[in-house]
């Protein structure tokens, strides 16, 4: 037993001091240095494994690619029609705003970031990015994928790195609106890293499969109208006050490499 006592006491003391120093912020430079030191190798391996996953997914999905291609072509034609209408409406909207001397919304500022790695614990769905406090990041900011789709929120900020809680984490909550006639509001929640759901939807709201879900802007640091997902199906139980929609993400959360953080 004496053989174990001294190292155990030493280890306990070091751990206690390190935890103390971490929460006092004294370890921040050392932590940033360690992240920077590990980032290159971790990022290369992360990218390589992302490529392996994409390749695997491609082979698993190739049977359905032909059907998907036909569906996408039909959707493209529909989107082109919608886009033409949207361009007209945008031009008309701009004209009307100018006539009303409408104050323009403040444009967003973006900070682009590279995903260094996933987090080390199996209990959360998060990633680590290479931007931090020095780049003006604070917890709660929206993180979007390159295509402009919301993928998560900043959960923790270091000097030169930050942790992003992905929307698929079951602790993730985002105030959202459905782009339908009633502008239905609700809460988008993660489903244990697998998918997303929208809860707190009043029973009297009409939802359709394929409706887009966007941010409502009710959270101060997240701008409105950022695309989150689209509705896959709706679970409705007559005896309950609210109904729940199951959402399908627009982007794959598995193969993210670069993201942008919106600073409102």
């Amino acid at each position, binding site marked *: 037993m004496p053989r174990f006592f001294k190292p155990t006491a030493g280890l306990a003391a070091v751990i206690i001091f390190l*935890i103390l120093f971490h929460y006092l912020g004294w370890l921040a430079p050392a932590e940033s240095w360690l992240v920077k030191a590990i980032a290159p190798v*971790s990022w290369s391996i992360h990218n390589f494994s992302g490529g392996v996953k994409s390749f695997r997914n491609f082979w698993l999905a190739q049977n359905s690619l032909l059907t998907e291609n036909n569906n996408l072509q039909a959707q493209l034609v529909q989107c082109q029609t919608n886009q033409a209408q949207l361009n007209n409406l945008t031009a008309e909207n701009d004209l009307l705003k100018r006539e009303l001397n409408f104050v323009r919304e403040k444009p967003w500022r973006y900070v682009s970031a590279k995903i260094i*790695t996933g987090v080390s614990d*199996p209990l*959360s769905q998060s990633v680590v990015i290479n931007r931090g406090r020095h780049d003006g990041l604070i917890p709660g900011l929206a993180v979007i994928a390159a295509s402009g789709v919301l993928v998560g929120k900043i*959960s923790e900020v270091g000097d030169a790195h930050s942790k992003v809680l992905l929307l698929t984490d079951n602790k993730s909550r985002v105030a959202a609106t459905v782009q339908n006639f009633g502008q239905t509001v609700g809460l988008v929640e993660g489903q244990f890293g697998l998918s997303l759901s929208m809860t707190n939807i009043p029973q009297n709201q009409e939802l359709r499969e394929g409706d887009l879900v966007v941010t409502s802007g009710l959270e101060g640091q997240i701008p409105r109208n950022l695309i989150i997902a689209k509705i896959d199906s709706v679970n409705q139980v007559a005896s309950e006050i609210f109904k729940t929609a199951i959402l399908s993400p627009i982007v794959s959360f598995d193969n993210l490499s670069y993201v942008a953080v919106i600073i409102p």
Partner: protein
Amino acid sequence: MWRRNLFIIFLLYLSAGLQLGLFNNFFWLSQFNLFLVVLVFFVNLSSFSAALIFAFGSGLLLDIFSSLPFGTYLTTLGLTALVLEFLFFNFFTNRSFYSLLMLAVLAVVAYQVVFLAVAGVLYFAGWSDFFVHHNYWLPATGQLFITLMAVTLIFWFINRQSKSFKPTFLRP
């Protein structure tokens, strides 16, 4: 001494790259802990102090990249190293393949017990948002088998390269 410490730093760097960049990216490998496997070998082949330094370094790296409160992995891996050293010193000193496998199984069990206890205490005390969900147990069970495979592979490799793992009771 400095060569040993350099070797530990190299192993920490390599393990961190693989653990964070590769294993955490795949659902089935997400709970495989390479640091734990290397720790088992440190306990078997090196001194107690080297095992403690490695456990401490691993804990620090995992804590920096974790969403859990800082100290969770330092405590978990530190305690796991102590448990492993105690078991090795008292029960598995012959360095046979079977005792190594048994030590690896006990390492996974000890690691999971301590990790869940620490994460649970932090969660129920309100210091952490994260605790086990229903997806946790499948890869956690898989961790045991993947760990055993990794230990077997590394044992085979070391056994071919050196005499460190020749069972002591067979020595003349």
